[in-house]
């Protein structure tokens, strides 16, 4: 069954390492849906989280290929693992008329999101949380009219 997989790649912090990962995935015929990379507690080590679609078998092949990259220390497909804390960050700009404002505020409260800016016709909100919560929040805001949003894609840490 084709589904989205979350991959965490631990790499040596060297120039071009992100390009190596992304070009390998493209080269094998897959598409990265989201990607985020950042330094870790070890200055020589960098972590990249990304999401790609595929069957378990396909993803296993990609993981093996990624493991072959010289700069890659470790690759984990954490999609089916429960012992990971997953978080994602969202900034969203939603239309807010006087009539709908209270409803939106209530959603913000329920989701423990935070208002970043309020203007005459829209509100800018930030939210961090598990990716499903972020998706749900966007879904519930969409009837009001979403102007734009950006989400980071998930980051993961083992419990």
């Amino acid at each position, binding site marked *: 069954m084709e589904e989205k997989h979350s991959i965490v790649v631990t790499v040596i912090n060297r*120039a071009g390492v992100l390009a*190596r990962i992304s070009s390998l995935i493209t080269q094998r015929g897959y598409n990265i849906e989201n990607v985020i990379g950042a330094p870790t507690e070890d200055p020589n080590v960098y972590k990249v989280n990304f999401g790609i679609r595929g069957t378990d078998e396909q993803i296993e092949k990609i993981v*093996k290929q990624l*493991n072959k990259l*010289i700069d890659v220390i470790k690759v984990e497909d954490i999609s089916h693992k429960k012992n990971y804390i997953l978080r994602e960050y969202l900034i969203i700009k939603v239309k807010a008329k006087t009539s709908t404002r209270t409803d939106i505020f209530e959603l913000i409260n329920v989701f423990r999101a935070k208002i970043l800016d309020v203007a005459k016709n829209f509100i800018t909100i930030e939210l961090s949380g598990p990716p499903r919560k972020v998706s749900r929040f966007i879904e519930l805001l969409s009837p009001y009219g979403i102007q734009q949003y950006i989400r980071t894609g998930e980051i993961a840490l083992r419990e």
Partner: protein
Amino acid sequence: MKGAEVVIDSLRKEGVKVIFGYPGGAVIPIFDELYEVEDIRFVLARHEQGAVHAADGYARSTGKVGVCIVTSGPGATNTITGIATAKMDSVPLVVISGQVKRELIGSDAFQETDMVGLTRPITKHNYLVQRIEELPVIMKEAFYIARSGRPGPVSVDIPVDITLSDIKEYDYPSEVNLPGYKPVYEGNVKQIRKVAEEIKKAERPLLYIGGGVIISGGCKEIRELAKIANIPVVSTLMGLGCFDSTHELFLGMPGMHGTYAANHALIECDLLIAVGVRFDDRVTGNLKAFAKDAKIIHIDIDPAEISKNVKAHVPVVGDAKRVLSKLLEYVEPRRKNWWNDTVSSWKKRYPLSYDHKDADGIPPQYVIDLLNEVAPEDSIIVTDVGQHQMWAAQLYRYRYPRTLLTSGGLGTMGYGFPAAIGAAIGNPDKTVIVISGDGSIQMNIQEFATAHLNDVNVKVLIMNNAYLGMVRQWQDLFWNKRYAATCLKRRDGCPPKCDGSEVSCPEYYCPDFVKLAESYFIKGYRVRKTEEVKPILEKIMSYKGPAVVEFVVRREENVFPMVPAGKSLDEMLLGS
């Protein structure tokens, strides 16, 4: 110490004896350093592609790392085909390219190209040296990565100002520190015992061996295993030479142009022991029929090859030689059974054959077949790509590893001749025979100069059918004889459509290979009659040094057997 000196010293520390290459602006400092060096030979090719293929031929025939130095920009891009060829066939190369100076990188400077970006998908690893202090470490890593694990090409791109700058403390590293790269050599013993168990249980076992066994040096072990357990053997194109092809257990090459016995054995075996192979589509045909009733054992050093195309029931990750020698401790002798008789009867009933009659030119297969008689036993055969390559694979009886050099994975026309020059330089006492076609040879024909000037013992046999024969064969069999763009005699004035039967067909061939060879001071011969083939082959084998022979062969000869692309291995066209 200057960066250029570091480069040369690194090469020396890595035991490099020969470098192939071509100079240019961004590598003048390195070449200037080479000017003083006496213990490393430099071979100047006539095109960077020739240089990389030569380094590749040197590497495949000797097992050492092939080294190539070229300049930035076009020098670097000209190596791309050669690097990709080496990557597909797991050949250890270190390709050093110059780069514009660091302050110009990214400014579209003269002869600037993003070599790291270009070679990312076709190298095992690649480097852009950004600081002089990194240079010794990178050189060390490049050689280590190229030759260890599953070998492959490594590109090292060095900005010209780095080769000119000074390093304060230079000490060539004695070891590498690569936390992300730990090739597994020793196979898991539990898995290896399972393999022995499976062999014991099997009724219809088959060994399917490839280039990985040759690379690991495990051919002796394969021969022993096959003999102890009486297991018939099929070998991929890349594996030819690993198993003595004159041995009774040898069934030939399987796949698109494989033998009947090899293909049917693959379909009907109940245990497939795959060693150092990658289940390439040219071998397996349609995967649905491939080894459909068999348990699959897959021994390979590259974990990413396991279950990539065909699911392995017993995977063993490790170096073929080490896994096989461990396996030999556990494997029990097996007696021949009806399966052995069956495959032998296939082999007898459907041998490779060809039409010997001397009509419409020399049968190209005959020329190759004759090499079995006239070529020195330890000759190295190098091919280009196309029909002649398949005939060379089918008809020459390989007996020793590293005696067939051919572009199996990428299928690079123009590989053969420069690769042969590299092989001859690495094996000065051997005869190196290039089996080529009139199409392929023209793709790196400029290397005639390199062959003459280095007086290499390379015999170039051109099977001239005035066609791009393999493509023409497909057009003949599957495209209704519409020979689009495959006739090399075609010229302005030819009718728009021609299936080769036009009477107005120009008689002469362009170029005149004999004159061309002679213009490079190489002895050239043209053979039109079948009875002249043997004397000329004997003649060119009798002296050392390069020779070129053009065989005017039967134009419309096809390679059989043939499994059409995508069909299963039992859907073979056996030919007329």
